[in-house]
Each structure stands twice: as structure tokens, then as C-alpha cells.
């Protein structure tokens, strides 16, 4: 069986792709480093292990955009492929522009010890879409969890408890917008927070303007977020951003029976409607 670095070497040697985006050994013991390999000599750097938590779909818009003539190869776990589906769906890339080196994944870890939270409700050990597949699936000993269990748990809290919880959490935000920068679906060149005419979201930090930003972020990702968890991982203040994203995913699933990242032909739920959408809340 081919290893990722062999595949990459071949792809680059045969001039089939302009670059291979993948993982290499990190500078810290529990981290891998993302690399963009452009020559076959460097291809041997590429590895895959349980520390490869990053979602490399981000590079498809951040580093390449439509300007690339030749496709780009990307190493992708099953969960990451969902983001690619989203990007195709939203016309940011075309399928032919990406060569997906799919990896069978048995769960990844952010710290080398604990399984990443997103892995507990993952059903995509094998990617749904790929051009070549590597790795072997192990028998998984992970106990499958309802992806929305923490949302449901949180919803049991009273209104005030919820409000206080978020006020405490959002107060920590320093508006570095790392959550946005690492999100594969936050591909806008100029984000709404950077727009000044008018400035819907004030750039200073305060509970209210932080809330405004986080409502915006969650809302803009409603029906689009695939749950890769990069935002939460990038947040150095540990704001539970995934909880908001998951809530949105749940609302969209419950009301419109839609899950993001599964169908690149589907209409995004908020750019769509059905006559029978509920309106019991409307007078």
C-alpha cells in the first residue's frame, strides 16, 4: 500500500498537482505541523498520525483560490472532506481542482492524550469522497455519542443560567478573530466585522459587541458548519464555540432535515425555504 508521501511524490513528479497540503512532524511533542509541499523532494515530510487534528480544507481557499490552474492535493480525514463538499456547494472551488488523498482515520487528538471531542460522534472514518484512499481502519473502541448531547444538556439550563454562562465565556474574547481565520467556511475576503459602512459589529471588546460577533459567527455558519471544531481549537481563551455551532446544526437538522457537508448539490438551508416551514411562533 502506498504511503501518503509516496502518493505525494508521484503526484508531484507526474505534474498532476501543483502542491500537496498535508501534515508533518511538529516542533512540539503533541503537535503536527501543516505543510504545503511543492516539490517531490519534500514529499517525504508528509505523515499521518493521531495528532493530525487540523482540517486542511482551509488551505483550499486561504492559499490557493481559483487562480490555481492545476489541482491541489490535500490530505483529508472523513470529517475534513465535509468542508470540501461545502466549498464546492458554495462555489468556492470545483471538484476537479482538488485531489483528495483520503485517509482512514481512527480518531485524532489535540493533546496526544484525549480523543478530540469531534471524534466521538464521527461516522466517517472513511471519507465519503476521495481520489485515493490510504490507511487502515481499526476496530473502533470509541463509544459513539449523540453529537447534540451537550446542546441538549445545555438547553436544560434556565434562561438566566444560559445568559450568565455566555456572558462569562464571551467576556474572554479578545476579538482576534482566530476562530474566523481558521474556519474553512469563513472564506469571505472581507468579513462583515471588517466592513465599516455601516459597522454592524463594533471592533472593541465588550460583552455586547462580543456577543454581537459571536451571534454573527454562529448564524453565518448555520447550516454550513460541518463541525470540524477548528474555531474552538484555535481559540486560546477556550470559548466553547462548538456548542454554538452544534446548536445551529441541530436547529437546521430538526427544522429542515438538513446536514451540512454531505451533498455538494444541495441548496444551503438559509438560502432556501419550504412552504410548510413552521410558523407557530408567528402571530
Amino acid at each position, binding site marked *: 500500500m502506498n504511503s501518503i508521501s509516496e502518493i505525494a511524490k508521484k503526484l508531484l513528479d507526474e505534474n498532476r498537482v501543483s502542491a500537496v497540503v498535508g501534515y508533518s512532524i511538529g516542533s512540539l511533542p503533541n503537535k503536527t505541523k501543516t505543510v504545503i509541499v511543492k516539490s517531490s523532494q519534500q514529499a517525504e515530510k508528509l505523515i499521518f498520525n493521531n495528532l493530525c487534528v487540523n482540517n486542511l480544507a482551509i488551505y483550499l481557499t486561504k492559499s490557493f483560490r481559483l487562480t490555481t490552474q492545476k489541482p491541489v492535493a490535500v490530505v483529508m480525514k472523513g470529517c475534513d472532506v465535509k468542508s470540501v463538499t461545502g466549498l464546492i456547494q458554495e462555489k468556492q472551488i470545483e471538484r476537479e481542482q482538488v485531489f483528495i488523498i483520503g485517509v482512514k482515520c481512527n480518531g485524532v487528538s489535540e493533546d496526544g492524550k484525549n480523543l478530540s471531542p469531534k471524534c466521538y460522534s464521527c461516522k466517517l472514518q472513511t471519507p465519503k469522497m476521495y481520489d485515493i484512499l490510504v490507511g487502515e481502519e481499526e476496530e473502533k473502541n470509541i463509544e459513539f455519542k449523540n453529537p447534540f448531547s451537550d*446542546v441538549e444538556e*445545555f*438547553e436544560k439550563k434556565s*434562561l*438566566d*443560567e*444560559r*445568559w*450568565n*454562562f*455566555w*456572558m462569562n465565556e464571551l467576556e474572554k474574547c479578545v476579538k482576534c478573530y482566530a476562530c474566523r481565520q481558521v474556519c474553512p467556511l469563513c472564506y469571505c475576503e472581507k468579513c*462583515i466585522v471588517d466592513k465599516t459602512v455601516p459597522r*454592524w*459589529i463594533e471592533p*472593541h471588546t*465588550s*460583552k*455586547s*459587541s462580543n*456577543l*454581537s460577533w459571536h*451571534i*454573527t459567527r*454562529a*448564524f453565518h455558519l*448555520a*447550516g454550513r458548519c460541518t463541525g470540524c471544531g477548528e474555531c474552538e481549537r484555535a481559540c486560546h481563551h477556550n470559548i466553547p464555540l462548538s456548542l*454554538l455551532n452544534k*446548536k*445551529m446544526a441541530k*436547529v*437546521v437538522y430538526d*427544522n*429542515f432535515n438538513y446536514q451540512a457537508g454531505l451533498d455538494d448539490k444541495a441548496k444551503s*438551508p*438559509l*438560502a*432556501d*425555504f*419550504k*412552504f410548510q*416551514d*413552521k*410558523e407557530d*411562533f*408567528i*402571530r
Partner: protein
Amino acid sequence: MEEKILTSQFEPKIASFVCTWCTYTGADLAGTSRLKYEPNVRIIRLPCTGRIDYNLIIKAFENGADGILVSGCHPNDCHYSSGNFYARRRFIVFRELLQFIGIDVRRVQFAWVSAAEGAKWAKLVNKFTSEIKDLGQFTNYQKIKRDIFLEEAVI
């Protein structure tokens, strides 16, 4: 008498976003019909509920609104055919988000008021105003707004 004094202490600020074809015209009809209603609502006229983005609502709260009333054409009556359907979806999701964050969604009311429903508009304004009076000032939100004219510098 006592009740009247109590309620008169708090006059809610209500922002309303309405479409011009149905609800704005309906509100005009309430006027032409000389129906009386509470003076707390400030209307912003938009072409369609489809134009009403969630951030208008957030901004209104940031500006001190105690309640927000969004209203447009009944389903299938939209002057633009489907603007209200998009709005309805947006509000299904947005309401849930507000609720999740701990905002009392009773403060954000959605309604369909047609151009013929002047009476419904008047009734709606009165009912919503009294509901917001019962809920009281939206201090939760007003407190988090950073007012450097009032707050004392700590650092």
C-alpha cells in the same frame, strides 16, 4: 389606579421592522380607521421582510430596545412572492440561537399583518407593548453595552 401608576413607570422601547406592502400599509389602515394603540413602537419601513436581517435586531437591542416586532405579509401574500418565506426560515434559526444564548425570545415577536389588517396591527401593538411591560426593561442586554460615560475605569 395603582396598577396604572405601576405600568406608567416603565414605557418600553419597541423597535419594529415591517415590510412596506403589507404591514406598513396595514398600519396606515389602522391610522385611517382611527384605531388607537400604544405609542411605544417605532417603525422602520423596509421593502420586504426578506430584507430584515438578524443584525438589525441585534443593533436595535444594542440601542436599548426592550422588544422587537417584525412583521410582514402572510405566507403566499408576499409582494415579492417569497421574501417572507426566507425571512421565516431565518427567524426560525435566529430565535433558537437567541434562546440558546439566554435571551428571552418573547422580546422578539414575529407577525404577519396584511394591508387589510389595520385592526390586527393595532391589537398586536397593544398586546406586545403590554407583554413587554410585564417582562420589564431589557436590562440584561442594556447592562452589557459598554457605556464609557457611565462606567468607572478600573484599569
